[in-house]
């Protein structure tokens, strides 16, 4: 029950944060002088095309871009009625993309799921890699295993994601015959889900997951190793060894459980950096996630599209933080739900 209350409390905080974030995003998007429609109208005027202007002017009033900024924001969020009543993010209306001349919802629909899929795969990859490697590096510290994993970890941290993407892209295709670009074979696009399509998607996910996950896995592994090493020096480990406990079962039973909490808590900081990384990597590898969409939208000042994508990215990270908080509360009985006792 207490856990449920805690989760609901965190959910409320998340909502409040999301509102603040939306103000921030809307403000940042509106920073550059001019907007897409004004630019378009000016361009049409300069070239003397009059029929386009009418449409642009229509879109301008339709999406209330002629209103003051604060009111624009309220209408976009759905807190104030626009020309067609309440139709904002809260009501599930995501607006119009001027650049692609389509509703934002149609444009990003599939990409949203792909983004979630890619990031989920990366999180799984990171935990699958970092957990065993971190434990081994700590248990066999100062041996070649430790040094090799440290070296690989440092290289993983130092190589920019997009460079790693370019390199793996090239060698993966050349020597392992891994497919290049996209998230599935082009022939499966728009087809219903089938076993073959699943297989194609999994194979296409290998390189992106690896690229996005590497630096995160490297950092995670280093921290798990450090935490575990701290624990291994403590007297209770000595006692367990003195009793004649087998090293491996001792390791799993006591120190790992202590070192595991920060490992889980890390997911909160991990997810923002993953989402960041996946945007960049998607641009380089040509994945149909929201990364490339965001880049085009930002470059062409496509207001609603970029604002929506940024909101979605923020939502994704906030949900990640929420999950980590709840997980941590489940794992660690010392964490009190809902604040400190007076």
């Amino acid at each position, binding site marked *: 029950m207490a856990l449920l209350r805690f989760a609901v409390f965190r959910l409320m905080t998340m909502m409040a944060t999301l509102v603040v974030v939306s103000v921030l995003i809307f403000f940042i998007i509106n920073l*550059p002088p001019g907007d897409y429609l004004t630019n378009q109208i000016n361009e049409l005027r300069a070239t003397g095309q009059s029929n386009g202007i009418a449409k642009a002017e229509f879109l301008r009033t339709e999406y209330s871009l002629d209103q003051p900024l604060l009111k624009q924001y309220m209408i976009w969020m759905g807190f104030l009625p626009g020309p067609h009543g309440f139709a904002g993010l809260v009501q599930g209306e995501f607006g119009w993309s001027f650049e692609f001349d389509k509703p934002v919802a149609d444009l990003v629909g599939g990409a949203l799921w792909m983004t979630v899929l890619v990031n989920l795969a990366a999180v799984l990859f990171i935990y699958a890699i970092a957990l065993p490697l971190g434990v081994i590096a700590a248990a066999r510290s100062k041996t070649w295993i430790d040094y090799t994993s440290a070296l690989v970890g440092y290289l993983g941290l130092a190589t920019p994601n997009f460079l790693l993407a370019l390199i793996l892209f090239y060698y993966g295709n050349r020597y392992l015959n891994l497919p290049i670009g996209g998230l599935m074979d082009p022939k499966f696009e728009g087809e219903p889900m089938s076993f073959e399509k699943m297989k194609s998607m999994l194979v296409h996910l290998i390189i992106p997951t690896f690229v996005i996950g590497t630096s995160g896995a490297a950092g995670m592994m280093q921290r798990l190793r450090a935490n575990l090493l701290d624990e291994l020096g403590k007297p209770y480990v000595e006692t367990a060894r003195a009793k004649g406990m087998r090293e491996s079962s001792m390791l799993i039973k006591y120190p790992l459980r202590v070192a595991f909490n920060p490992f889980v808590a890390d997911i909160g900081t991990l997810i923002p950096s993953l989402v960041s990384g996946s945007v960049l990597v998607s641009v380089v590898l040509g994945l149909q996630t929201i990364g490339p969409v965001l*880049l085009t939208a930002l470059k062409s000042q496509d207001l609603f599209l970029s604002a929506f994508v940024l909101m979605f990215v923020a939502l994704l990270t906030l949900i990640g*933080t929420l999950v980590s908080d709840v997980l941590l509360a489940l794992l660690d009985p010392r964490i009190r739900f809902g604040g400190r006792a007076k």
Partner: protein
Amino acid sequence: MTIFPDGRFVDERPYVSEMGAEARDADLDASNTVLMLRRFRKHKLAMVSALFLLLSYLMLPVAGFISPYTPNERLEDFLYHPPQMVRLFHEGEFIGPYVYRTEAQMNLEEFAWEYVPETSKPVKLNFFCEGGEYKLAGLIRSNTHLFCASDGSTVFLWGSDRLGRDVFSRILYGAQLSLTVGLVGITVSFVIGIVLGSIAGYFGGFLDWIINRVIEILRSLPELPLWLALSAAVPSHWGPVSVFFIISIILGILDWPGLARAVRSKFLSLREEEFVRAAEMMGAKPARVIRRHLLPNFLSHLIASATLSIPAMILGETALSFLGLGLRAPAVSWGVMLNDAQNLASIEIYPWTAIPMLPIVIVVLAFNFFGDGLRDALDPNRS
């Protein structure tokens, strides 16, 4: 030395009491800085990195002198020229550093330029010769270069790019921006972080609550999309210098929350100490207590952790420029150079255009090792 069967050992030299006392006194006299340096020197990797970084930064003002060409100098006859070897011995005879003159030929099967070296005629390199004009440290006009090729030949140590510009020279010039972007960014983040962190930690209450919420919000957002959005807002007609500063400020603005949090938690524990109470009772204003009594306690530690976030900024600049939203064309940075190497085909045919990757990886690694060593040296409690 005698070793007993149970593993103990005894030094047989006679015990001299002065010797031990001397050694002890020397250590007691050692200042904090000396102790820190002594600990730092134990980290071999950190020492090497520090030396490398020092040399790199010292190189920046004289980059124009070291590089044979200026960054935007185009040699139209030598597009995508592969790297040239500088040799010393010609047919078994030492004649000093020289290169071979190359002849451009069109390969009509692959539609690419091929450069055939004339191996019979070595062309010596000139030293302290005249070339394109540059400014030493951005102030003194000069056109003397450390080395350059004689007339009619070229010296492309790391090849040339698609416009016939020397990659080696551009990497040296690119270092000027790529290496300083982190420093400017960290200064911004340092100032904001310390000011807001100390206000939150020292005064507590409502201010603390507000600052904490801001920190939480900024920390829970993915950096890159926000960087992208902010740099997309930079007007396109701004000059390279203003773009450079605004980009480094953008990098710094999103980096301070981590620092502010560290400062705040330190302040929360330190403000209850007696020396703070004493200073307050003697009538010191909050600003003085913060600056004179609280900050010096852990400033060195903060500097060490700041060193560790410089590489993130260097990578950030590279990523932004790579996507075309960071520094722009006439300016040269490593990210801008990699922007040209974006497509796979060109890397496959002209691998040397991807060389700017190497300095990025090396500098980031060096900063990581240096920061780790510094942190360990400053903080004796960490093992």
